[in-house]
């Protein structure tokens, strides 16, 4: 069928900021969608609030609106642009929900906008639990039986019908409190009565429990002519009970026979037809490991994280095909972009094993609740491809960048027996490593199967890895590593580093040993068809096999290293940078090779670079690629710390690092060298030194005076970093947070209270272009990634700007930067100090590029390749400030991470960001806050619990709130301070003072905003923690920085909501 009639202009809704459960996969999907629609000659209008995305680039859509994804703003864009069609199924749940709201509000009908792709009815049928159940029952597809009860007797009756186990879920409680699994009537009684008590409406849902069943997913496509295909199926190694986003997943399924595979495949086709989806959907099944019985668990009527994974796993571009289907094309009309010969109407055949491993943020949130369940906690994921399951698993572990190259977890040996059993049964992020530990201790596969539900197939595979480890260890002990054994281990998937650990040899020794013996990897192609047809996609993975297919070209070429899995501190921004670097290289006529392992991203789309290698970003795998491709050099600046960390080992292996040299990178990263550089340049930094013992730290602190910023020297990115205000706090930090040894010293720096400034600059080695200075709202001490940033700066004097520019230029020149540099400064007492220098692209580059219109990565890449800024049409120095204001606001995922403190500090905690754009600061800030999902009440009660040191500072803020009509509640100390200042306040009880206390008030919905500043190392810390957590769990805004509240006051004072200004697309304000 040809394109739908009357559709010329299509609007695409993005998914907004990155949060847990909604990550880069939607940038990948949205980018594909925009390109795919424009390929068909359609005009595309895009709305997304996330500036760190490729899809919001000016060249991705005809009109790009970086605006909040709320019904109000999307409606305004629709009224302004009058698109013919709206494509809502590519922006995750956000896009889908907005489409439903827009349809219900009547805007779509009023403006004559056709909903493209999956019809509204189908979306509702999949999203509404009751309709979904009815629909499935009507086509004879089983759903787990469930019932809502308000008495135990009803529960008992249901249990009599269905049997045990049963899941009990209280209605309307947060974080699943009061729920659980009941295995018998006694347990049912206990859980139901507890659940009824917890539930606000005294109801619990009881459902057949399929925990422990196999969790199988199918990615299904359907077109308007009713042609249906499944793109691939996937088997979760972690059985039902753990969110698929937190499960280790393998594709295709490994333990299903043809009958089971097609039983579920047939069911999938039946379901997608019954729903009437036009595009793609993901269907999850629970399959009994002991019979053909199965249940349909969920359908996502849109592209998803799983569809991104399936696309990368198979080479089948689901989002692209779904977009074409949405505008009327049918599967048999859409070409298979991989083969270029066949059509999209086929099912990919894999001749390799794909494994997805989640990346969790518990390295950042050491105290967070690590157990895995139905709430997803991973921030990102890696994918690995190999010809063996073991090889894929081990590649995935290496790709995670958790410092491991095998299934041996340091410290696992010390876990006591019962503890091990308990942790195996109640899965946490380390479960697979603990499985290995259990096997090592002699637990049987059968026993582990019983307690984990992980299929014996996978357990046997892990056992196989361990026994080969033993074999290697044994041989090495005898002083011999026979070539056959080495080859066997490599074919199995053992890395050089893994083998080094087993043999006591060095990683490089293993490398040269196997090279001597001719044991080299072969690169295979991902071609969607298991080699049946010749394919054109340059998408490769390595394995130790006979034939290498990645015949290098003789072109001029450069490799760009990507940034691996999305984690806190290294997000989608770096994928944005990698992609732009690849594009810039291609623009220069240089073949671009990308190496990355994140399936969610645009960088790993097979048509982003000239060649894509889906591999772990570790020295061995990268060197293997470089050995084969022999590019003229490698660019490490754009892949975050992942790529930077590879610079040294690559250079040592003789690889040319392009751009800023490894030596100069080291000069910026090594504390001693950096300090002496600053002294040479006469650029001030906060006083401080390295301490090699606890005593020494105390001495330094007393020398420079409290407060001090303390952090271990061996980690970057603010991990385990804290501001301490006195000696007690320092000692307690030293005792709990770090182990200071001569080998791992601690840095002690004066904490300078002041405004934080940030700069990203492009240098060609001579000239230094500073696109703009960003001013942070939150004072130094709050991690720059968690700060609200403003461009252009609103409160800086000419002198300060000149100083920042001068320092930046001199630092860039001194470090001989070729490419990008990021510098953070603090303005303290009228003086500018350098806090940190990163000789690479930073998190703020996409934001700054978008608000200034300077293609920073493009310029940096071309500068790295030898072009001067002048040649490219730019001059050195500070670029003239633009007219519009852009505010970047961080977005957090605290509601999904239980037991994590939400207070802001030197450790980064945000998962994503949004940008607000406006003619003035207030409007931009307002939009950014709306986009970030902050629902600040216009009136109501504010709860204030303020640390002593902040009490003076908070007074004008509280006064401002009172002037706006807010009522203030406070606990004794804060209340006293407010009363003393003559402010009306209602005193409320602290947690230990009885009931109703502050936490009760939050729970009772009597508080509309919480202001809480941090007191460290004292008893109230617990109170504060509880207040903050309760606020997050009850969805009440909670601010922990006075600076944020101060600017918020300005926004609240003006009625922004009714300020109807014209929305300006990116293309216009950049002109």
């Amino acid at each position, binding site marked *: 069928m040809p394109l739908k009639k009357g559709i010329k202009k299509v609007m695409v809704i993005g998914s907004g900021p990155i949060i847990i459960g909604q990550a880069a996969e939607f940038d990948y999907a949205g980018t594909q969608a925009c390109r795919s629609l424009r390929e068909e000659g359609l005009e595309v209008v895009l709305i997304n609030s996330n500036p760190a995305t490729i899809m919001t680039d000016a060249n991705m859509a005809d009109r790009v609106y970086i605006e909040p994804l709320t019904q109000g703003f999307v409606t305004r864009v629709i009224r302004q642009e009058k698109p013919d069609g709206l494509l809502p199924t590519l922006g995750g749940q956000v896009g889908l929900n907005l489409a439903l709201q827009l349809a219900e509000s009547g805007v779509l009908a009023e403006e004559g906008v056709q909903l493209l792709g999956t019809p509204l009815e189908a979306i509702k049928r999949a999203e509404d639990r009751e309709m979904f159940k009815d629909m499935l029952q009507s086509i004879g597809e089983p759903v787990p039986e469930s019932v809502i009860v308000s008495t135990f007797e009803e529960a008992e009756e249901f249990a009599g019908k269905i049997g045990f186990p049963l899941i009990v879920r209280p209605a309307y409680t947060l974080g699943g409190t009061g729920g659980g699994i009941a295995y018998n009537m006694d347990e049912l009684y206990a859980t139901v009565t507890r659940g009824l008590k917890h539930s606000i409406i005294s109801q619990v849902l009881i459902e057949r429990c399929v925990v422990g069943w196999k969790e199988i997913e199918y990615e299904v496509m359907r077109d308007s002519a009713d042609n249906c295909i499944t793109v691939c199926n996937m088997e979760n190694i972690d059985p039902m009970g753990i969110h698929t986003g937190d499960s280790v997943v393998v594709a295709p399924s490994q333990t299903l026979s043809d009958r089971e595979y097609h039983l579920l495949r047939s069911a999938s086709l039946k379901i997608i037809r019954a729903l009437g989806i036009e595009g793609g959907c993901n269907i999850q099944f629970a399959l009994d490991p002991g019979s053909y019985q199965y249940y349909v668990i969920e359908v996502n009527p849109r592209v998803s994280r799983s569809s991104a994974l399936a696309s990368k796993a198979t080479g089948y571009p689901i989002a692209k095909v779904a977009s074409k289907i949405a505008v009327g094309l049918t599967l*048999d009309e859409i070409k298979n972009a991989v083969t270029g010969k066949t059509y999209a109407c086929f099912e990919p055949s894999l001749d390799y094993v794909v494994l997805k491993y989640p990346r969790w943020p518990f390295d950042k949130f050491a105290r967070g609740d690590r157990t895995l369940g139905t709430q997803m906690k991973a921030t990102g994921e890696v994918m690995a491809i190999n010809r063996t399951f073991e090889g894929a698993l081990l590649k995935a572990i290496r790709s995670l960048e958790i410092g491991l190259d095998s299934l041996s977890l340091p410290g696992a040996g010390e876990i006591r027996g019962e503890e091990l059993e308990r942790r195996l049964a109640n899965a946490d992020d380390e479960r697979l490593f603990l499985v290995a530990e259990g096997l090592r201790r002699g637990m049987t596969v059968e026993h582990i199967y019983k307690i984990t539900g992980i299929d014996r197939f996978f357990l046997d595979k892990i056992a196989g890895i361990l026994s080969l480890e033993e074999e290697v260890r044994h041989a090495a002990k005898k002083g011999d590593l026979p070539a056959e054994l080495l080859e066997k281990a490599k074919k199995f998937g053992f890395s050089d580093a893994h083998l080094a650990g087993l043999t006591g040899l060095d990683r490089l020794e293993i490398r040269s040993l196997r090279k001597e013996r001719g044991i080299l990897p*072969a690169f295979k192609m991902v071609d969607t068809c298991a080699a*049946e047809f010749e394919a054109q996609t340059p998408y490769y993975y390595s394995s130790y096999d006979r034939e290498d297919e990645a015949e290098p070209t003789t072109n001029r070429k450069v490799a760009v290293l990507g940034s691996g899995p999305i984690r806190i501190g290294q997000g989608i921004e770096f994928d944005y940078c990698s992609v732009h670097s690849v594009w810039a290289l291609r623009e220069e006529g240089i073949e671009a090779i990308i190496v990355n392992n994140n399936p969610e991203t645009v960088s790993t789309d097979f048509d982003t670079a000239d060649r894509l290698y889906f591999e772990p970003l570790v020295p061995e795998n990268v060197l293997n690629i470089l050995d084969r491709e022999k590019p003229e050099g490698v660019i490490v600046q754009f892949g975050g710390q992942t790529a930077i960390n590879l610079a040294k080992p690559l250079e040592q292996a003789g690889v040319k690092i392009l751009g800023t040299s490894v030596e100069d990178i080291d000069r910026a990263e090594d504390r001693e060298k950096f300090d002496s550089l600053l002294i040479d340049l006469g650029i001030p930094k906060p006083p401080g030194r390295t301490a090699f013992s606890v005593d020494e730290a105390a001495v330094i602190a007393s020398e420079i005076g409290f407060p001090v910023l303390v952090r271990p020297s061996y980690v970057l990115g603010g991990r385990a970093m804290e501001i301490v205000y006195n000696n007690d706090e320092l000692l307690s930090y030293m005792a709990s947070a770090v182990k200071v040894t001569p080998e791992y010293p601690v840095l002690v720096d004066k904490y300078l209270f002041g405004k934080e400034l940030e700069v990203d600059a492009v240098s060609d080695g001579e000239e230094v272009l500073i696109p703009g200075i960003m001013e942070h709202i939150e004072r130094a001490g709050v991690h720059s990634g968690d700060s609200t940033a403003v461009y252009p700066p609103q409160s800086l004097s000419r002198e300060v700007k000149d100083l920042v520019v001068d320092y930046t230029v001199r630092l860039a020149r001194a470090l001989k930067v070729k490419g990008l540099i990021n510098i953070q400064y603090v303005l303290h007492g009228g003086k500018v100090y350098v806090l940190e220098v990163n000789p690479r692209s930073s998190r703020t580059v996409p934001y700054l590029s978008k608000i200034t219109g300077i293609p920073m990565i493009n310029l940096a890449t071309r500068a790295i390749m030898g072009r001067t800024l002048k040649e490219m049409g730019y001059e050195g120095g500070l670029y003239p400030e633009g007219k519009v204001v852009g505010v970047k606001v961080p977005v957090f995922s605290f509601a999904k991470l239980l037991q994590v403190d939400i207070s802001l500090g030197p450790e980064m905690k945000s998962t994503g960001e949004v940008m607000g754009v406006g003619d003035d600061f207030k409007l931009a800030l307002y939009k950014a806050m709306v986009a970030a999902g902050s629902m600040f009440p216009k009136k109501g009660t504010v709860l204030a619990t303020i640390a002593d040191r902040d009490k003076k500072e908070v007074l004008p803020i509280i006064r401002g709130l009172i002037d706006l009509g807010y009522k203030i509640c406070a606990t004794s100390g804060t209340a006293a301070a407010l009363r003393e200042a003559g402010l009306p306040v209602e005193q409320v009880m602290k947690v230990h003072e009885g009931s109703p206390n502050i936490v009760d008030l939050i729970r009772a919905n009597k508080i509309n905003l919480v202001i809480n500043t941090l007191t460290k190392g004292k008893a109230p810390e617990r109170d504060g923690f509880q207040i903050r957590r309760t606020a997050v769990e009850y969805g009440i805004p909670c601010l922990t920085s006075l600076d944020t509240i101060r600017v918020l006051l300005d926004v609240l004072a003006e009625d922004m909501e009714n300020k109807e200004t014209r929305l300006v697309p990116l293309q216009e304000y950049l002109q």
Partner: protein
Amino acid sequence: MQALLALEDGSVFKGEAYGATGERYGEVVFNTGMTGYQEVLTDPSYCGQIVVMTYPLIGNYGIMKEDFESKKSYVRGFVVREQCTLPSNWRFSETIGSFLKKEEVIGLAGIDTRALTRHLRSYGTMRGVISTETTDERELVERARNSPYLSGQELVPAVATTEIYTYPGVGRRVVLIDFGAKLNIIRCLLDRNCEVVVVPPDTSAKKIFELYPDGIVLSNGPGDPVNVPYAIETLRELIAAGKKPMLGICLGHQILGLAMGARTYKMKFGHRGANHPVKDLETGRVYISSHNHGFSVDEESLKGLDIYVSHRNLNDGTVEGLKHKFLPVFSVQYHPEASPGPRDSEYIFDQFLEKMNGEAR
């Protein structure tokens, strides 16, 4: 134990033997299905062939008796990247290795099956010898060159029934001419309440009519369709009688084509897998289907005949289905009975039933 696979063009692949030992020759072909190795092993159509599986992990879910497509395995060799010795599935009764051993099929593991597949894709299917008995590569290549071609071998008699037998059913009586039928064809007919009378491939038309069938199914089977001339003859007589609905599947489809006067040709590397899109030209709908054929009906040769193309492969345009212009006679090149592969095309059996019921005339 080491084993070798030598191809007639001189390529040699070295791996580990599993299953039986010895030496066998055969036509080397690849199958791209990710599941269904057991159905492949027991599909009589693979008689005379050494099968290479492109999916690298084979044997993961073991072997289960109820998934057999015939009583035994007819493949001459089974080449995989990795064979699973510790399978896992609630139904399995033995490993693929022990099954192959019992069935006297030589298994070859540890092969770069993708490299081998690419080779076959580029140069076409070819003769090969698989051996656990020699390490002399040159000698083995020589033997591959001297081995018989697939065409010309008497494969159908080796796999088909020699006696008539009946599966009872209360519905329509179907005579299934067995050229090496997969059990699932029979299961699909039984599911539709048919009584299935299975007859040997050389059964005469007269004899078939004496069984008073409501319809006739021509089964799948191994080898070149021109090597069963007697069946082509029988079919001409059956069609000439012009009354009975007929459904040809795979080899049965080719034989039907030949009987109607069309020609068949050997494909470069054929279609073997579970992911081929086939377009039903009458409805425009595309179905993902299960394939196993190395020969095809030549579309050119249909000109002026009483049959026309009803289904076509979306990938390469090959003829995947034929229909008689006037008679209730039709056929498909692929496997509507699935097993292995998608069940999307079972409607073909429904159409056959409709024809027998006289509803769709």
